[in-house]
Each structure stands twice: as C-alpha cells, then as structure tokens.
C-alpha cells in the first residue's frame, strides 16, 4: 500500500501531468494521421524521453500509445483509412456506419469501448502480470505456429462473402511476406539483387500503401462524386452509446479479455488482438450477416480489444524483458536506459516505479475520455475539408511517414507499388484485409513452422505433442472444419456487398 501511495505521488506531480497531457495530444495526432502509427509515435518520443526521469518518460509512451490506438479509429470511420494498424480490422465496418449517418454513434462507441478496454487492460496488467507472463512464456514455436494459423483463419472469417477471392488475397499477402532473407536458411528470396529488398517488404509502408494510397487513387479516379457524410459536425457523440454498451456488455468483456491475452503473448499486439476479436465477434454474433454493413457489434469487441491489448503487451515486457509487440520492444530499450532493467527483480528493487507505470495506465485511459472527445469534435474538420484538398495532404503525410521509418525513398516506392496493387485488387472485388494479414503473419507462420520442423526432426506429430500446442491445434482444426457445417446451416445468407 505504501508503494502504491508512493507511486501515485510520482505520477500526480505537475511536471508528470503536463507530460501526460502533451503526449496525449501528440498521440491523438499521430494516431489520427494515417500512416503514423502508435509504434511510430513511441519511436519519435524516445529521443525526448532521454531528457526525462523514468516516470514521465514511461508515462509519455503509455499515454501517447493509448491515445494513438483510439485515434486510429477517427480516419477509419470518416475516411475509410485506418489511422493505425490496430484499427484496420473494423475500418470497413466503421466507415459503413458513417455512410449510414451514424458517425457519432460509431465514434462514441469506439471511444467508450477504448476507455473501458484500456482500463481493463490496466487492471489486468497491475494485478495478474506475473501469472500471465508465466503462461505466455511457455509458448514455443509449436504454439506460435497454431497462433499464426488462428490469425490467418480469422482473415477467412473477415472476408466470407467471396471466400475464393479472400483466399487469393491472403495468398498475395503471404507471397509478399516471402520476399527477403529466408528466416531459416538465411538465403535471399525474390530480391532481384536489390539490397533493400533483402530486409523484406516492411509492413508499415505496405499497410500505408494498401490502405491509404489505394484510397487516394480511388478518390482521384472516382467518376461519380463520393457519398459524402451528411452532418457537417457532430452532436452529442455519447447519445445512444450507453444503450449499445449495455446491449453488448458481454462483447465488451470478451474483447477486453481477448485483447489483454493476445497482447500478453510475445509478438502479438493490438492489431492482431483487434482482428481476432472482430472475427470472434462475428463468429458468435446472433446476426453475423449484418457484419460489414455498418453493424456496431464488432466495433465494441475490436475497439475494446486493441486498447486492452496495450496493457497486455507490457506484461511480458516488464516481467521478463520480452516485448509483447513492436511498441514494447522500444519500451524495453527505454527501461534499460532508465536503469529499470526489466525482469522479476525490478518488482523488488524499484516497485514504486513499476506501480507508477500501472497508475499511468489508469490516468491515461481516463484522460482518453476528455481528450478523445475533443479529438472527435475537431475531427469534423476532416469532413469539412474537400477531398481534393485532403487527399494530397494525406498522400504527403503518407510519404513523410513512410520515409521516416527507414529514412529511405525505397519505403516510399514500396508504398506506391502496393498502393497500386491494392487499388487494382479492390476494383476487381478482392478484399485487401486478408492480404495485409497474410503479410503480417506470413513471417511468423513460416518461421514457427520451419523451426518447429527442425526441432522435431521433421515429425509432424510434434505439433500436437505439447499440451498447449495440442489444444491450440485442435481448436484451429475445429475452426477450419466449422465453415462446412455452417455453410450447410445458412444457405440463403445475403452477400454483404461492396462497401
């Protein structure tokens, strides 16, 4: 108790609070601009945190990322471009709601579920960190293989209108993921002698290209005026939110739980949490046919899941020094610089600093309510700006953001090429979300499969020999078989159509 009071004293300090508010505004901006992700916000904060004591330094990162993950919903709902990868899972859905004139509701629900999910993640982080990390630590490549399979399976769920096109899109993503140095043999593949391609196709330029550039192209080539949102500014964004949250309170809980668990798994962060939650939501919904047409249910799940995931990713990072995602990979670097070497010992040596991080999580997520509300209000500017003014600006931010990742023009090239590919794919009715997921999980899938095979000397049975792997494997195979059963049950389900 003494420690908690001490930690609160560290956080509720004028300087720390000022850092939290400023980094919150920074995070909202970063999240709302497509292509500038929460990871990039963290990376840009690192040089600034070098000049701060440990508590404000970590508070800045915690706040900025929590804000950015929510703010990613704003361009997703208003422009059909996810601001961060964590919003990609339900961008189509949110945009469809906006087109139905429910922009206030989708943003209000997004904000509320983000706050609730974030707080849930913070509670879990604070109370069960060591226990969860122990579970995640037992995962070897066999378990990761099944996890990657589960992730890819969710791609199939997200695009069930035309499973064949979804599958082709997934394979395009997996193909792009094979570019670069083979993770097991160390041999370059599909690099055409280019040194830049040896590192593979970086996910962030690819995502910016496939979502943002394709959208810019679509807007440029549109012959008929795009359907514009009716209301120029938002009224009360919280109207009707209470009812939605009450109706889907189980989804809220489920999204938060899945988000925290997926976040706590090393390597899987908020974006994968959102995909899985959205797929699970659709799977268990009473009205799965409404998904993709502007239905709020999946947004409650995924919106709470990605913010809950943030808390989850800190669990293995703090307890064992193993990053939960790319954000916490950077955080671990900061922890070392600040002399808070992650590991169980830090809980004994500097508990007040660790608890200060926990307190920050609560503060940041509560602060998300007013700051996020202000962000929604000012986001109406995005609607007022005509698209022919907005699109060049977006393209400019995309180019700057892509360039900033590696400081090379090559990334900009990747973004442009994949933007064209995605545009052509979408014009022909191929969904791009599966391609993105294939690109993200392709490396993990191949890597975990190959290393597992090396460990097992080529014996496939090994994928079911370890208890956790066996459970995950059986669940995955069961999910693969379930569509056949489901297909037989619902024959006349209407296609969702292009949105």
């Amino acid at each position, binding site marked *: 108790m003494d420690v908690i009071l001490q930690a609160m004293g560290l956080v509720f300090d004028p300087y720390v609070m000022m850092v939290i508010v400023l980094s919150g505004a920074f995070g909202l901006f970063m999240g709302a601009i497509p292509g500038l992700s929460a990871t990039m916000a963290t990376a840009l904060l690192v040089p600034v945190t070098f000049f701060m004591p440990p508590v404000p330094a970590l508070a800045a990162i915690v706040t900025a990322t929590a804000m950015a993950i929510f703010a990613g919903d704003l361009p997703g709902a208003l422009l059909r471009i996810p601001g961060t990868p964590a919003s990609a899972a339900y961008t189509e859905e949110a945009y469809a709601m906006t087109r139905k004139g429910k922009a206030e509701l989708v943003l209000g629900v997004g904000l509320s579920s983000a706050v609730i999910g974030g707080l849930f993640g913070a509670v879990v982080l604070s109370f069960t960190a060591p226990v969860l990390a122990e579970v995640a630590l037992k995962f070897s490549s066999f378990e990761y293989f099944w996890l990657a399979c589960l992730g890819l399976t969710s791609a199939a769920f997200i695009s069930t209108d035309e499973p064949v096109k979804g599958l082709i899109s997934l394979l395009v993503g997996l193909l792009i993921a094979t570019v670069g140095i083979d993770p097991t043999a160390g041999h370059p593949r599909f690099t055409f002698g280019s040194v830049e391609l040896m590192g593979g196709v970086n996910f962030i330029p690819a995502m910016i290209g496939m979502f943002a550039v394709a959208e810019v192209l679509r807007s440029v080539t549109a012959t008929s005026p795009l359907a514009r949102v009716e209301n120029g500014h938002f009224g009360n964004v919280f109207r009707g939110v209470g009812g939605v949250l009450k109706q889907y309170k189980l989804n809220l809980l489920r999204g938060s739980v899945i988000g925290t668990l997926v976040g706590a798994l090393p390597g899987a962060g908020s974006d994968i949490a959102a995909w899985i939650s959205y797929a699970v939501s659709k799977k268990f919904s009473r009205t799965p046919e409404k998904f993709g047409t502007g239905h709020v249910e999946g947004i409650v799940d995924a919106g709470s899941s990605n913010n809950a995931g943030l808390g989850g990713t800190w669990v293995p990072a703090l307890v064992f020094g193993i*990053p939960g995602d790319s954000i916490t990979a*950077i955080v671990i670097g900061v922890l070392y610089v600040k002399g808070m070497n992650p590991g169980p010992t830090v809980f004994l040596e500097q508990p007040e600093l660790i608890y200060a991080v926990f307190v920050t999580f609560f503060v940041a997520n509560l602060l998300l309510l007013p700051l996020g509300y202000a962000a929604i209000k000012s986001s109406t500017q995005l609607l007022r700006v005509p698209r022919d003014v907005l699109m060049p600006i977006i393209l400019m931010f995309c180019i700057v953001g892509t360039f900033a990742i590696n400081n090379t023009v090559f990334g900009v090239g990747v973004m442009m090429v994949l933007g064209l590919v995605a545009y052509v794919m979408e014009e022909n009715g191929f969904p791009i979300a599966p391609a993105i997921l294939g690109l993200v999980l392709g490396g993990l899938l191949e890597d975990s499969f190959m290393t597992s095979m090396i460990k097992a000397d080529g014996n496939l049975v090994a994928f079911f020999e370890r208890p956790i792997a066996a459970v995950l494997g059986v669940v995955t195979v069961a999910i693969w078989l379930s569509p056949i059963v489901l297909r037989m049950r619902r024959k006349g389900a209407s296609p969702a159509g292009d949105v």
Partner: protein
Amino acid sequence: MKRRSVLKFATMAVAAFAAFGAPKAQAEWPERPITIIVPWGAGGGTDAVGRILASLLEKELGTPVNVVNRTGGSGVVGHAAIAAAKPDGYTLGVATVEIAMMHWAGLTDLTYADYTVFGQVNLDPGGLMVSADSPYETAADLLAAIKAEPASTFKASGTGQGGIWHLGYAGWMLSEGVDPANVPWVPSQGSAPAIKDMVAGGVDFVTSSLAEGRALIEAGKVRPLANMGEERLGLFPDVPTLKEATGSDWTIGAWRMFVGPKGIPEDVVAKVVPALEKAYNSPEYKEFMDGRGFGMTWRPAAEAYEFMQKADEDSGRVMKEAGLAK
C-alpha cells in the same frame, strides 16, 4: 576625408582577412551537423549505443550529431550506406560484427576494408546457457552428452542461420573436434526469442551473450554455463570462461565499431578519435553500458582495424568449415 580612408582600409582589411580566412574556416571540421548511420532498428542495442555516443560526441565536437536508422537486409543496407557515404567526415556510422560475416555468406561484397575505423566501443563475448530445469550443470557435462548421444538429440539456438552466435556455436564444436551438424541449429529472430524458446522447452541450449540472457538468468529461469570470452565478466563473476570450463581455446564476441566511409581525411580522423575516446571514458557512457549489461572494450583506430581484420579471418575460417560460407 581621413576618417573615410581609415574606414575604407578597415573594410578592405576585413575583406582580405575574410578572403584568406574563408578556405581555412571551411577546412575546420566540423562546421555543420554530423549524421551517424545505425544499420539496425530504433530501440535495439546498436541503436542505443549509437545514440548515447551521438549525444556525447555532440558535446565533444560542439555540433549537432543526428542518428539515422537504416535497417533491412540483415544489416547490409545500413553498412552499405555508411560505406557509400561521402568521406567528408559528416556521415559516420556504427558497424557491427556482421560486417565480418556477411561477405562470407555471399550477402554483400563489403568488408572491414571499406571503412575508416575510429575505434571499438564495445565487445560482448558469446555465452552458453541452458534452461534452469536442464540436467546439465556445467559446460563439460553438456559437451560430454553432445559427444555421447546420437546426432540430432540436442538442438541449439541464439540467432538466425549463419548469425554471430551460430558461428560461436560452430566454432566451439569445431574446437572440440565435434561436427557442428550433430546439433541442428534452430534459427531465431534474435537472442531474446531464442532464450525464451529455450525456457519454453523448444531448444536445449543457447549460445548468445550472457548479457542478453540477463533478465532470465536473474529470474532463475536460465542457467549460465560459460562465457566465450577471454576472461570472466563483471556482470557474472561466477560463470567460468569456456577455456576454464572445457579447455577449449575458442573465443567469440559481438562487437561494435565507430566507423566512417573509407578515405576520410587524416585531420578529421585526428579529431574524431580523441573525441570518441573521451566519450568512451565518460561516466555517462560507462553508466549506460553497465546499465544495459554491455561489455566495455576500447581499441583505438589502428588496433580496432587489426581486430576487425582478425575477426574477419576467424569467421571466414569457421564459416567455411561449418558450411555456412557461400
């Protein structure tokens, strides 16, 4: 009249001084910001070393020093960018141990000879670790078991295929007269995932540096058996060197060098080296390196260059014998 001519003279004098002074001032390195290229991602160990050196050199040299991450291609992209920069002293970089290995693997033509070397700033010797529930208490036990059991009984990891710790493992086996192929190498995306996989029961031992396993060693999840350096580590004084543990003469380490493209003028080198040495000896650098558990080793320009040359020969020999060279 007189005043005017004095003024005129003064103006002329200033102009003349400026005319003669200008080329000299231009030669005064550094007159504009310096860029340091780090071939690895932001947030990693090399990035952190590059950034702390940048901030210290900024103070020493009195000019802004910016860090730029050029990642990709297993380090090839960034190393190539340093070598290809204009050798004017305004683009420098941090070269890592991979520069002594990549060309043997056929990934690039770049070698140590493509750089101006200012000094070595770090060395982390390889290690030998097993999970805390492993039956092997010493490196000698493990070695005896590897020799006694049939091939493929054990699996090892620590980095990607052909990476530094794979080399460390292969070199150790060769020094003991064991075929490295007897223990299949399980490639990983780095030390941390490999050590985690070992704790999860995926592999039997890991040959990364002990510093990289620090958090899990201190948590009692990992048992360090040896370090593959010349002497014991300050961080783990109870862990024997490989020589003490098994009698093997094999040593290996991951190192970081402060370099620039080949052909940087002598007068610039003469300024960078002392500034770098001062930065290396600063309390800030020591505190930072101790905090991260990185090994401190300093070799100035020529010595560092010789060290790279030897490391290059060693890795070439072992990579060929272990079948890792192209």
